[in-house]
């Protein structure tokens, strides 16, 4: 079971037998049950909060409010969000807590003997609110007439600039200018396991939270900050996690359940408390992929050499930052695409609104940026009559490019490689890939005269790991066990915090330990995702774990080997891997080195459009990835297929309706994620393995890359099929029909 092999997942047997337990499966027998009551107010001041009836209701154990949180604030990168909205401000928060800015701001946790009693008692909470005016979207919010965070001077709270070359000269040198305004929609993560957590005070007095997230140590930090205690007094561990995709990187129940467990303990109640969200609470209650508006101009010579890129980016951060400042950075860099751009002006802004917060979601700003960059390139190719892949090849970034941030790129730039592989492998025949009849409406045969076929391309790159100087490290502990006379360890222990969100990282890490320590995987015993045993791994995000955790394991095994050679039994190996440093960009020019590693991808999408009904069937996707080294090729292909399915929903079916700061369709019956009959008929995955110089075994990362290029490849294929360019989505059948009608189809 070594690197490059394709063993069964280590969690496969538990997951196919039902033995794997997710957070909602681990409710202790004598637990009390909690309900988190949202304010249900997108913008209002709390005037009165009456809890007497709730407290007197049958089965109620206690209620938890703002008054129970020593430091009533949280946030992964800025403390701008109260844990609870309330009247009794603890005075130790950077945001006033008596104003609700989001419908899912937390108001009260009601704890009762049973879930039913907790729900019934929640209905008895009496509130009085003073309604406040709303800044629903960036158009209103950027005027600053209504401030989302009073005390600030502007809703535009984070700005980035790129100034490269001479933009006026670049525009003047262009023979063709492509100009467009792109509207990118929200997307809901829709992981199938909704949020749940159990909390208690353990025998050693640690505030303990068991849940499913993406980074146990960050959860612990955030809990400790709010409770105003040392992180060492908090323990976070993960059960099996039913999907995350960035949606479990921020706090949902972690802090409130920790506060609740602590309050129960203060009341002398030693029972655990459990809370599980409903699907509706999950969709309303956590952040989304960001809505964004981008205006862009791309200039090129008649020969197809890019002379200039201009862009203005407005990112709807929603009511709180979450990771919007970081997402903005990625979007900012990716609007210029994977191309050599001599002259550029890019202005990007994150803007607070009274809407659902935007945050991490697979791609992290990359999909929005790539939709703009690649749509612009596809339009340019058409305008100049140049083959779209050839146009990209002649402008591609290479090892000698300065890049948009003018600091060069990490060695091994793979843009041309993925373009070449895409050109070589893209099917040349005109036939549909599947050869199957397309029946847009299952019960009716299609009208053949209404079917149009098309092909679209997109190319991109995505950073691996944290960017812009954010502290980046990953720890691993490896222990070799054996007797003094043993030549090699008979048993190897791995302690690691990497979160298994479904991507297969636990399997990959065991493969890597087996390979590095040259032992059989059966000799390895691993303990994962528990702050009580493992060091800080950083999060399961940014396509970083294979790269970061792999390097941490190489280091830890090397340390254990040294100790073993010195005769230590057991032989301990601890290692904290730190990748090459990155930096924040210069505020005026955007100069700097934002990233230490990138993955590269190119896609060709073949599809059929029914111009009578507006249905689209994707017949075939060619997805090319330079991954450095495939640690587990089958799981890697699984990442590609899964990312494409999510992107397929993003561009074609997933429509989150947000009106006046409220999500109107918080159900899976109204927010449609793709099923087995909706996804592309065929996906051909091409894996290139160009060794990364700093990656473990040469590996980069891949989890986000296939998502990023899919939407612009689909809209380019729709254009190829129908002649209509579309600068927004999701393209549900009725929406697509509207666009086609505008194009006289």
């Amino acid at each position, binding site marked *: 079971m070594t690197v490059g092999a394709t063993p069964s*997942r280590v969690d*496969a047997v538990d997951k196919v037998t039902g033995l794997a337990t997710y957070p909602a499966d681990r409710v202790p027998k004598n637990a009390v049950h909690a309900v988190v009551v949202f304010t249900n107010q997108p913008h209002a001041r709390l005037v009165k909060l009456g809890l007497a009836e709730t407290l007197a209701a049958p089965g109620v154990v206690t209620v938890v409010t703002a008054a129970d949180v020593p430091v009533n604030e949280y946030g992964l990168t800025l403390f701008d969000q109260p844990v609870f909205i309330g009247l009794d401000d603890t005075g130790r928060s950077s945001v006033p807590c008596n104003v609700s800015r989001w419908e899912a701001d937390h108001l009260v946790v009601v704890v009762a003997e049973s879930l039913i009693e907790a729900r019934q008692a929640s209905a008895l909470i009496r509130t009085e609110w003073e309604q406040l005016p709303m800044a629903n979207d960036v158009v209103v919010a950027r005027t600053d007439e209504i401030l989302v965070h009073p005390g600030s001077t502007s809703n535009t709270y984070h700005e980035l600039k790129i100034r490269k070359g001479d933009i006026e000269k670049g525009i003047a040198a262009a023979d063709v200018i492509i100009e467009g305004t792109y509207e990118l929609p929200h997307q809901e993560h829709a*992981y*199938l*396991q909704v949020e749940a957590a159990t909390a208690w005070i353990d025998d050693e007095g640690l505030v303990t939270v068991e849940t499913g997230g993406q980074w146990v140590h960050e959860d612990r930090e955030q809990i400790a900050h709010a409770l105003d205690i040392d992180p060492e007094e908090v323990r976070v561990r993960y059960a099996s996690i039913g999907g995350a995709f960035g949606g479990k990187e921020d706090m949902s129940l972690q802090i409130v359940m920790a506060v609740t467990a602590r309050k129960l303990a203060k009341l002398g109640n030693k029972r655990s408390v459990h809370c599980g969200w409903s699907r509706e609470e999950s969709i309303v209650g956590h952040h989304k992929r960001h809505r964004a508006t981008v205006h862009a101009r791309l200039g090129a010579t008649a020969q197809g050499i890019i002379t200039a890129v201009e862009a203005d980016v407005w990112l709807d951060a929603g009511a709180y930052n979450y990771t919007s400042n970081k997402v903005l950075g990625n979007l900012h860099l990716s609007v210029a695409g994977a191309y050599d751009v001599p002259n550029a002006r890019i202005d990007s802004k994150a803007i607070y609104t009274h809407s659902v917060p935007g945050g991490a979601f697979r791609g992290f700003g990359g999909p929005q940026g790539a939709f703009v960059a690649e749509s612009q390139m596809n339009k340019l190719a058409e305008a100049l009559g140049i083959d779209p892949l050839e146009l990209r090849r002649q402008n591609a970034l290479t090892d000698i490019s300065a890049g948009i941030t003018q600091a060069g790129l990490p060695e091994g730039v793979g843009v041309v490689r993925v373009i070449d592989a895409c050109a070589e492998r893209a099917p040349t025949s005109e036939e549909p890939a599947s050869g199957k009849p397309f029946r847009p409406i299952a019960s009716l045969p299609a009208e053949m005269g209404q079917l149009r076929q098309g092909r679209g391309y997109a190319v991109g790159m995505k950073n691996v790991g944290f960017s812009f100087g954010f502290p980046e490290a990953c720890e691993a502990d490896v222990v070799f066990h054996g007797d003094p006379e043993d030549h090699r360890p008979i048993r190897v222990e791995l302690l690691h915090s990497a979160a298994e969100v*479904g991507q297969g990282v636990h399997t990959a890490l065991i493969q890597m330990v087996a390979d590095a320590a040259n032992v059989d995987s059966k000799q390895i015993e691993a303990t994962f995702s528990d702050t009580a045993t493992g060091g800080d791994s950083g999060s399961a995000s940014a396509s970083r774990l294979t790269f970061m955790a792999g390097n941490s394991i190489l280091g830890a095994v090397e340390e254990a080997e040294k100790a073993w050679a010195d005769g230590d039994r057991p032989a301990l190996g601890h290692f904290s891997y730190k990748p090459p440093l990155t930096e924040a960009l210069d505020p005026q020019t955007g100069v700097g080195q934002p990233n230490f590693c990138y993955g590269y991808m190119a896609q060709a999408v073949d599809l059929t459009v029914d111009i009578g009904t507006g249905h689209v069937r994707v017949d075939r996707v060619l997805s090319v990835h330079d991954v450095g080294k495939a640690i587990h090729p089958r799981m890697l292909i699984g990442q590609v297929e899964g990312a494409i*399915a999510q992107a397929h929903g993003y561009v074609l079916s997933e429509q989150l309706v947000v009106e006046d700061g409220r999500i109107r369709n918080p159900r899976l019956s109204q927010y449609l994620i793709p099923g087995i009959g909706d996804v592309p008929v065929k996906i051909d995955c091409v894996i290139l393995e160009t060794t990364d110089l700093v990656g473990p075994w040469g590996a980069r990362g891949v989890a986000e890359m296939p998502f990023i290029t899919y939407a612009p490849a689909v809209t380019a294929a729709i254009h190829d099929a129908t002649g209509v360019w579309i600068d927004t989505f999701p393209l549900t059948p009725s929406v697509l029909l509207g666009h086609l009608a505008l194009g006289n189809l």
Partner: protein
Amino acid sequence: MNAEVSHEIVLNVNGEVKRFSAPARRLLSDALRGDLGLTGTHVGCEHGVCGCCTVLIDNQPVRSCLTFAIAAQDRKIRTVEGLADADGELHPVQAAFKECHALQCGFCTPGFLMTATALLEQRPNPDEEEITEALAGNLCRCTGYQNIRSAIGHAIELMQSDI
């Protein structure tokens, strides 16, 4: 607001008779998970869309989140916990999902396994379209379904070589 009246409910689950008392409106999903501790049946949407909660009742796939426990009395309920042999040998559908990497987070897996089991019991040799139709009511957010499709093909092979 008053606590609801409890009834004795008797269910036949995976060949075992189980008794517990619960209000008449107890959902089968909650009964399996909460009263009987069979947490392999998952709940992903609570209203019949995702298929995570699929169990077999008299060999038909049913959404346990839309079924009252009381209505499943006197019928044979099968859940993911009952698929493998008593000695732990995986059912061919389970083995195929494992071998074909037809799961990532695994949350949807029990539902898919139950739906696929019912399909292959009824139609040992389904064509692609029948597979699509049978699995259309089970959502997966991780895999993109390609490996799930391969796993069904592989399960068919395993079941045929079993005979």
